[in-house]
C-alpha cells in the first residue's frame, strides 16, 4: 500500500491526471452540447481522429499551433455539418449515421495520412504546445504543478466547461438549445427553428470533439499514429451519462477518469504490476466506464427528446 500512497503524493501524478483528462473534457463538452439539443453524436470517435490528424498535419506542414487547433475545429465542424444534415432535417437513425461518420472520418484521416507520408514507419514529431506555468500559482505544492503547470490547451479546456455551463443555463440561446432537446414542439411554437438549433449544436459540438482529438497530437503525444484515439470517444459518451448531462459533473467525471488512468499506468510499474498482467490495468478505464453507467442509470435524467427526430407539422 505504501507504493500506492507514494503515487498519490507525487506532483507528477496529479499533473498526469489533468493532462489525461484534458482531451476528454473537450470531447465530452462537445457530446454534451449535441445531446442537450437532442442529437446523439456517435461520430465522436472518428471526429477525434480527424481533429488529431488535421491539427498535427497543419503544424507538420509549417502552420502555427493555434492555426492547427482552428483547422482541427473546422474539420470537425465539417463532419458535424454532415452528421447534422443527415440526422436533423432528414431525421435518419442517429446510431447508423454516427457510426457511419466515425468510419468515414477515421478512414479519411488514415487515407490522408498515408497520402501525405506514404513510406513513414516512425511517425514524425512536431514542436507541440509547451507547458505555460502560471506565476505564483504554479508554485503551490501538489496543486500547482497539477493545475497551473499545463499547456494552454488544458487551461482552455477548463475555461470551456465554464463557458458551456454559462451558455446552457444562463442565456436565452442555452434555454432554446436545452428546450430543443426536451420539447422541440414547444421551441417551434415559439417561432424558433429546431433544425437550426440542433444543426448548430452538432456542428459546434463536433468542432470541440475535434479539438479534443487535436490535444492528443498537439499537447500529449506530439505525433500522429493509427489507433491513437483508442476508444476515448466512446468513453466520453459514457462520461456525458455519468455527468447526468451537466457540464460541471461531466468535468468531475473526466478528472476522476484521468485519475484512474494515471493510477493504472503507475501501478504497472509497482510490485502489484509485476504480479498482474498489464492488460488488466488497460481494461480498467473501460470497465470503470461501464460501472459508471450502471451506477448512474437510476439517477440519469436523459434529455426527453434525445434521438427523437423533429419534423415540423407532424404531431
Amino acid at each position, binding site marked *: 500500500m505504501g507504493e500506492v500512497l507514494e503515487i498519490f503524493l507525487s506532483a507528477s501524478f496529479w499533473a498526469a491526471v489533468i493532462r489525461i483528462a484534458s482531451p476528454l473534457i473537450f470531447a465530452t463538452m462537445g457530446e454534451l452540447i449535441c445531446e442537450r439539443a437532442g442529437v446523439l453524436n456517435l461520430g465522436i470517435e472518428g471526429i477525434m481522429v480527424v481533429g488529431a490528424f488535421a491539427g498535427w498535419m497543419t503544424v507538420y506542414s509549417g502552420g502555427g499551433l493555434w492555426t492547427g487547433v482552428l483547422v482541427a475545429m473546422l474539420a470537425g465542424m465539417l463532419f458535424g455539418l454532415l452528421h447534422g444534415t443527415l440526422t436533423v432535417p432528414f431525421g435518419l437513425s442517429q446510431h447508423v449515421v454516427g457510426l457511419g461518420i466515425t468510419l468515414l472520418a477515421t478512414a479519411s484521416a488514415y487515407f490522408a495520412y498515408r*497520402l501525405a507520408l506514404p513510406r513513414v514507419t516512425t511517425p514524425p514529431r512536431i514542436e507541440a504546445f509547451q507547458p505555460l506555468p502560471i506565476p505564483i500559482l504554479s508554485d503551490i505544492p501538489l496543486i500547482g504543478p497539477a493545475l497551473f503547470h499545463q499547456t494552454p490547451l488544458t487551461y482552455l479546456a477548463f475555461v470551456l466547461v465554464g463557458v458551456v455551463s454559462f451558455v446552457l443555463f444562463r442565456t436565452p440561446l442555452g434555454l432554446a438549445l436545452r428546450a430543443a432537446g426536451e420539447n422541440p414542439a414547444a421551441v417551434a411554437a415559439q417561432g424558433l427553428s429546431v433544425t437550426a438549433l440542433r444543426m448548430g449544436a452538432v456542428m459546434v459540438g463536433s468542432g470541440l470533439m475535434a479539438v479534443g482529438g487535436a490535444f492528443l497530437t498537439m499537447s500529449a503525444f506530439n505525433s500522429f499514429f493509427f489507433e491513437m484515439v483508442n476508444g476515448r470517444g466512446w468513453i466520453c*459518451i459514457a462520461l456525458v451519462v455519468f455527468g447526468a448531462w451537466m457540464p460541471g459533473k461531466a468535468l468531475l467525471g473526466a478528472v476522476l477518469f484521468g485519475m484512474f488512468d494515471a493510477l493504472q499506468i503507475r501501478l504497472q510499474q509497482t510490485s502489484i504490476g509485476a504480479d498482474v*498482467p498489464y492488460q488488466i490495468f488497460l*481494461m480498467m478505464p473501460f470497465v470503470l466506464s461501464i460501472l459508471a*453507467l450502471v451506477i448512474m442509470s437510476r439517477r440519469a435524467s436523459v434529455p426527453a427528446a434525445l434521438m427523437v427526430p423533429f419534423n415540423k407539422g407532424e404531431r
Partner: protein
Amino acid sequence: MRLEAIARPSLGRLIGFPAIALGLTVLFGSSLALLAGANPFQTLGLILRGAAGSQFALLETLNRATPLIFTGLAVAVAFRAKLWNIGAEAQLYAGALMAVLLGTGALGWPSGLLLPAMAGAAMLAGALVLLGPALLKTRLGVDEVVTTLLFNFIMLLFISMLLEGPLKDPMGMGWPQSSRLVPEARLPRIVDGLRLHWGFALALIAAVVVWVIQSRTTLGYEMRAVGQNRQAAEFAGIPVGRVILKTALLSGGLAALAGFSEVAGLRGNLSLDLSPGFGYTGIIVAMLALLNPIGVVISAIFVAGVFVGADSMSRAAGVPTYIANIMLATALLTMVLAIALTRFRVRWD
C-alpha cells in the same frame, strides 16, 4: 424544410435514389483515386479485377465474406428489434476463443462430434457476452450502444492477456498466438484444392435459418413488433424484455460463429489480428442489406469484394487501401439517405 410521407412510392423513386447513392459513392471513390495521383478508371478496374477477376480472386472474396455474413446477420437481427449491438467484434472473439479452447487437443473427439461442439460452445459464449449489456438495458436502462462498444476493448485486452499467458503457443517463437487446432477441429474445404471452407456454407445456412426465424416464427414477429414500436408491442402483451434478451442471445451467437469459422476454417489458430474489424463492418453489411438476412449474404459479398479488390489495387496502383473504408462509409451514408428519400418527399415551406 419538412418531410412528407409518401403512401405509395413510384418505381422510379424506389430504384432511382439508391442508384444515385451508388453513383455518388463511385464518383467519390474516383475523385479520391484522382487525389492520390492515380487514374480513377484504372483504379476502379483494378478493384473490380482484384475482387472478381479470377477464380482465385473470387474465392478470396467469398472467404472474406464469410465472417461478414455472420456479423452482418448478428447486426441485422439485433437492429431489427432496435437492440443496438455494436459489440459483434467482442462476440466474434468469444467464439474464436471457445473454438481454440475445445479444438487444440482438449477433446479427443472425431470431427463429426468436435466441430458441432466447438460451434455450439462458440455460440453460447457469444450469446453470453451480449447477454450482459442486454440485461443492463432491460433491467437498468443502461444504453447498450456504449456498453457493447466498450466491451469490444475489454474483450480484445482479455484475449491479449490469454495469448500472452495460459493460451500462448509454446512453439510460437514468442508470438502472442494460440497453439494450432488439431486436424479433427478444422473445417474442411468445400471442394478439394479450392481455397473455400465449409464456413461459407455454414454462413449461407445461417442466413436461411435467420430468414425463417424472422418471417415464419412467433419470435420473429415479436422481434419486429418490438423494433417497430416498443410501447405498442408492450400494450399488445408481448414480453418486450424477454424478446430483447432472446434477440441478444441469437445475435451474439451469430457473431461468435464468425470467430469459430475464421479459426476453424481459415487460420487454424487464434491471434489478435484475427478480425480486422469484422464486427464493425457487419453494421455496414446489415444496413446495406436493409436488415434482410438474405440481403446480408449479397451485401457481405459486395463489401468483401471492395476490401479484397482495394487490397490488390493498392499494391498495383499505390492508392492507400483505406479508400475501401471511405467508399463503404460513403455507400452506407448515401444509402440510408436514399432509402429515406424513397419513403419521404422533401417540402420546402
